[in-house]
């Protein structure tokens, strides 16, 4: 099964409530030469009870039900473009396709007297160009799937991550990309905890996998890589570590390896705490966060100090490559993973991936990617990269961020946060962006 490009919709940015219908008009113009909204293949509808607006548009599904319900073969999934094509000369107007679609993506146009659907304007959708608020974006992330799904998943099925955890996704995607000539080290934490290193003599990974100490992942891999270099074998030394194993007790080893520019691909999956052992605070835990060791009581309202910004510290080692990433922006992550993998042939490459924890941060398991997204869009977790000798470069705009509440409100760990704390967090976010901008040569 294959999935492809599609138009993504962010309801929180949509301006329908301000009478914006730019996308609808643009579509009607392109498809009919008129402004008649009935000709638009994109429909924005008011959200119920004051919620954000919603979208009726063909999602160009991977395994489309409309195509399966079509008796005439007028609808087909184009294997090249991924689009669901509609052929007028074959259509018998039976409307069975509209039964297949759950999202109002193919509808009867009474003026044209046949069904009509989005054709993505040959890859340059008019609605996206017309959208003034950025609510509509043309996303090609599915192309990652097309590229990657042929590669072997190098973890066994059935890892026992908590529901909604994005670490498993990070693990599977990353190792699929990095490939089988890899030695993987996963220091104590959620990643081995969910079974990647196996149990009692079995393995959870199809590449050699090691459960190093919480403290020594980077130096262990550095030694291993040196030996393979000596043997003339190209083996990737890769770490999937938590923030504790990377930035707290593991930091000395990490810093040493970065300083020596050892050829290691080090991925830190940052869930801001010791989540595997029951949600204790780490150096990466953010200010104000509830954890089991920074609890909320009459004398204490969550963590009293700010988080250590490990990615920035790593950048200051001047190793080959340092970047931050988020699973809400997977394309961005894939580009960075490519660069990091390549950089790890030359020296130390460090990727810092935000991994909101539904269990420990107290948000619904369906919201993980949304929390990731809001983290980036509020500048709480800005996306950037740094290549040795160059300047820091933002890979997602830091302009016009959402207020930090938009991020904090999603997680129960900030539920108690007072106005003063909120102001402090916003100030910290602003300060951090200012610092990053200096490294980016912006002022």
């Amino acid at each position, binding site marked *: *099964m294959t999935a492809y490009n599609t138009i993504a*919709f962010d309801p929180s940015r949509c301006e329908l409530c301000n009478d914006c219908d730019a996308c609808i008009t643009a579509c009607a113009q392109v498809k009919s030469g008129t402004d008649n909204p009935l000709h638009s293949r994109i*429909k924005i*509808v*008011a*959200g*119920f*009870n004051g*919620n954000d*607006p*919603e*979208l*009726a548009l063909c*999602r160009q599904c991977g395994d489309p*039900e*409309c195509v*399966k*319900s079509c*008796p*005439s*073969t007028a609808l087909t999934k184009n294997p090249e473009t991924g689009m669901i094509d509609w052929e007028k000369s*074959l259509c*018998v*107007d*039976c*409307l*069975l396709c*509209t*039964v*297949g*679609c*759950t*999202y*109002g993506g193919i*509808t*009867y146009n*009474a003026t044209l*007297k046949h069904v009509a659907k989005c054709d993505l304007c040959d890859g340059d959708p008019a609605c996206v160009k017309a959208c003034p608020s950025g609510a509509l974006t043309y996303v090609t992330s599915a192309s990652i799937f097309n590229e990657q799904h042929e590669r072997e998943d190098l973890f066994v099925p059935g890892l026992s991550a908590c529901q909604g955890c994005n670490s498993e996704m990070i693990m599977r995607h990353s190792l699929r990309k990095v490939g089988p000539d890899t030695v993987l080290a996963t220091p104590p934490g959620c990643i081995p905890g969910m079974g990647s290193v196996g149990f009692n003599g079995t393995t959870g990974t199809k590449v050699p996998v090691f459960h190093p100490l919480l403290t020594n992942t980077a130096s262990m891999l550095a030694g291993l890589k040196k030996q393979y270099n000596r043997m003339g074998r190209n083996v990737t030394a890769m770490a999937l570590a938590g923030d504790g194993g990377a930035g707290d007790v593991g930091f000395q080893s990490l810093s040493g390896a970065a300083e020596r520019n050892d050829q290691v691909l080090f991925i830190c999956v940052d869930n801001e705490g010791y989540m595997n052992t029951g949600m204790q605070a780490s150096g990466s835990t953010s200010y104000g966060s509830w954890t089991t060791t920074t609890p909320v009581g009459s004398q204490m309202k969550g963590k009293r100090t700010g988080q250590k910004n490990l990615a920035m510290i790593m950048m200051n080692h001047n190793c080959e490559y340092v970047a931050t990433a988020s699973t809400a922006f997977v394309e961005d992550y894939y580009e960075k993973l490519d660069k990091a993998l390549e950089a790890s042939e030359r020296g130390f490459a460090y990727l810092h991936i935000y991994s909101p924890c539904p269990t420990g941060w107290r948000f619904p398991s369906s919201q993980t990617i*949304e929390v990731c997204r809001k983290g980036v869009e509020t500048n709480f977790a800005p996306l950037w990269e740094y290549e040795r000798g160059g300047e820091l470069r933002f890979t997602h705009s830091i302009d016009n961020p959402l207020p930090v509440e938009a991020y904090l409100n999603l997680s129960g760990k900030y539920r108690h946060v007072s106005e003063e704390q909120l102001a402090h967090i916003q100030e910290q976010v602003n300060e951090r962006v200012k610092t990053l901008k200096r490294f980016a040569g912006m002022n």
Partner: protein
Amino acid sequence: MNTTHYLIAGASHAGLEAAHRIRLVDETSPITMVTRDAHPPYSPTILPYVVSGQSEPGRVVLRKPDWFEQHNINLVSDDELVAIDEAQRQVTLKSGQQWQYEKLLLATGADPIIPPIPGLEKTPFHVLRTMQHAVALRDHAGKAKRAVVLGAGLIGMHGAENLRHAGLEVTIVEMCDQVLPGYFDSRAASVIEEAFNDNGIRMLMGSRVVEVEPEGEGCRIQLENGDSLETELLLVATGVRPQLDFLAGTSVANDQGILVDDRMRTSADNIWAAGDVTQATDFYGDKPVMMGILPDAVTQGAVAAMDMSEDHALKPYAGGVPINTYTFFGQQAISVGQSMAEDGIEELTRLDDDNRGYLKILLRDNQLHGISSINQEMDAGIMWQLILRRVDLTPVRDAFIERPLETGRALMSSTWR
């Protein structure tokens, strides 16, 4: 003895979806499909359009031969299942071929019902269920002037309209006093009937045929009220039912169709059934029902295949919901779910000014029970899902009644991200 892991009898929507679903999780086990057609797979729904000439037989092929090759599926055409030995897990085909299977899916569809009308056995007439039937009817229509269609069900109505498009004088004879009984209420039926009348089709409702006899190139049809009709072409479209002779000697329980559970398992081990051949769970009641709807056949094929291939993503069949998207002479009648109110059902009806547009919403405890419309923009798929998921409309009740289209779209869109 031929052997296969999966044997799928039938190669229309249910069978094809099943093969597709199996291949999603099982890339290697042999799949064999058997179809009685010599023609490559097609949809029975397309046949009336073949009659009118709008669709060409060569352009409505659901899966081309390379699809079967790519998916490593062995297609046995022009042959059909005649006997099952469930103990030995073997089937015998009409050609005498025998196949050993591990898992068998019966997706053989349904066949026309031939009513016990005196004289019919010696009279030439048409039915419309296979491509062969459609081509024969099309060729005959090209030579005939007049056509009589027995039955105002879906096939009869589509057949009649398409014969009209092909230029014939058409008469419909229906025992009931409305068209499309069971799909639409009488008000909708009357709009449809009117359109047929307006387009020159004679509608003889509440009429019963007592005898037919050959006459010249065609036949003469005697009605109960004493009238008689002469025609060159007779299309018998009085319903369909599955042909189940191949079940003889098996433990596969059946009534009008093959009885299945919510995973499309029959009462016999290693045998599943899907599509028009089944009599499956009713979404609305306890008694199993015959459904005969294309999207439902796709769903049943998917459920059966996921159970056969032990796909853990399987969601049990939620039960059959009547759905009809009926287009006639440029108008649309859409009905999803129940069309008639009963006790405990709230009925809300709205008529357009010109009486041609019409909308009826049926609610039970603020859940959508059924919705039907004439000439209204309607997302049938969204309404189907609102019913199947038993979405509580209480918070959006007023909006839904006022604007079912937009509200339905907002509800389903909110489940997407």
